[in-house]
């Protein structure tokens, strides 16, 4: 489905800038509208401030300029997926997934049921009682994904979540993420430095240039139909990747 058809922006960034102490600006003049239910990738080289931007959107770090607006009204429920799984080693997979619900003081029985359902959605129903150290890297990342989705967030922020995984695992997790997004239609903001990943997953790729971090290009990924293996091997996917790659090269030179 094309992203532009969705109505209304879920998230609007207006002139967002960030500067630490007296240092040079990390981000400057970021204007971005993310439609509700869209999947948008932020693509850029390391050091372009894309992770910082994500933390600002999450409310974990205040912008020093501009503002983050939620046109729909109150700030939505947000799920955050980190670069690494970032699980508590002393809690089981189920316990880790249930953490956001515990913090919201959801009663124990409901908490367990919802966490179990979230684990099942990422294909880990059997691993509920296992500790993080007993899980593979890919499984840990799935637990992390389930934890981010357990509160049924309206907005999901992902900070290069699969960068540390091997190619095969990353493929499967990309597919899982697309499946979850198709089913729930949360608004997704996905930070990555992979051109292929950004084109595969998103309806729009926002290319960032560095020093200071700013938007260099915002490219729609016009690919109706399923983002499946057929798409991944299609000429149109290759062409889109070439376009985005060109924009990224332009951003690096800018």
């Amino acid at each position: 489905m094309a992203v532009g058809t969705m109505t209304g922006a879920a998230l609007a960034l207006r002139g967002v800038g960030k500067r630490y102490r007296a240092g040079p600006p990390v981000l400057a003049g970021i204007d971005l509208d993310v439609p509700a239910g869209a999947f948008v990738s932020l693509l850029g080289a390391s050091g372009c401030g894309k992770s910082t931007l994500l933390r600002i959107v999450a409310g974990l770090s205040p912008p020093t300029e501009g503002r983050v607006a939620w046109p729909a009204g109150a700030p939505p429920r947000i799920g955050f997926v980190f670069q690494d799984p970032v699980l508590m080693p002393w809690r089981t997979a189920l316990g880790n997934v249930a953490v956001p619900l515990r913090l919201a003081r959801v009663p124990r029985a409901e908490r367990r049921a919802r966490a179990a359902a979230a684990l099942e959605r990422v294909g880990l129903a059997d691993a509920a009682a296992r500790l993080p150290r007993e899980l593979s890297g890919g499984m840990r990342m799935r637990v992390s994904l389930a934890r981010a989705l357990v509160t049924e967030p309206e907005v999901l922020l992902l900070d290069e979540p699969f960068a540390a995984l091997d190619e095969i695992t990353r493929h499967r997790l990309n597919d899982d993420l697309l499946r979850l997004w198709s089913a729930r239609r949360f608004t997704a903001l996905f930070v990555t430095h992979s051109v292929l990943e950004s084109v595969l997953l998103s309806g729009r790729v926002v290319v960032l240039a560095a020093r200071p971090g700013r938007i260099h290009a915002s490219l729609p990924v016009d690919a109706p139909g399923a983002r499946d293996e057929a798409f991944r091997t299609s000429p149109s996917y290759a062409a889109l990747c070439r376009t985005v790659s060109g924009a990224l090269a332009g951003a690096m030179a800018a």
Partner: protein
Amino acid sequence: MTRPGAAARLLAPLLVGTLLLGAWEGAVRWFALPPYVLPGPLLVARTLVEDWPSLSAALLVTLRVTALALLAAVVSGVGLAVLFSQSRWIETALLPYAVILQVTPVVAVAPLIVILADDVRVALLVCAWIVAFFPIVSNTTAGLNGTDRRLLDLFRLHGATRWQTLTQLRLPAAMPFFLAGLRISGGLALIGAIVAEFVAGTGGAASGLAGSILEAGYQLRIPRMFAALALISASGVAIHLATSLVSHLALRRWHESAARWEE
């Protein structure tokens, strides 16, 4: 290098111990040393059995001081560490005093504490607490402040209260550090209790193992000195084993220092 197995880890020190004790007994007999110069281990063991009523009473006194001091160190140490973790200002203001308490030799402070405290037992407790408390404060503080920033972010994102962050994240994350501190403090509490008693000098029924050693020394009952010494060492080993066991049980499921990874 291969690691020694469980049986070897138990047998090797036992073998060394047996050999050393045998050599000691042999030397005492060979050189016909009188017991007031150096008693053999067999005589020490016999004294231990014969003097058991009075020695066990002294042992109980010492162990009670040690246990109470360790308990006080855990409560005050963890409490102070939690306070430190809540505010950098409090930590900056108070930490130097914790350090001063730690670096001042307890032997030097003990006479002062004995004068200030009405009760000698309280004085002993305070001395042992002073030595035992610092490793727990500093270790637990390091653990509380070393909590994964991203997990703290996750808690912030989900609107966790200070209390939730402390009880559900910081304290469990600090557990391995606290337990490492506890293992050190267990031994230190015993040392503190003994040293304090040497300085304070209790008498009569309140006398601990240090008192037994002093008293036996005045009376030249050297085998009894050795017997009391053996009890102190045994207590130290027992405390070490007990705190190690607690640590292992608490961490074995998840922490790398205790967990055995599946090969």
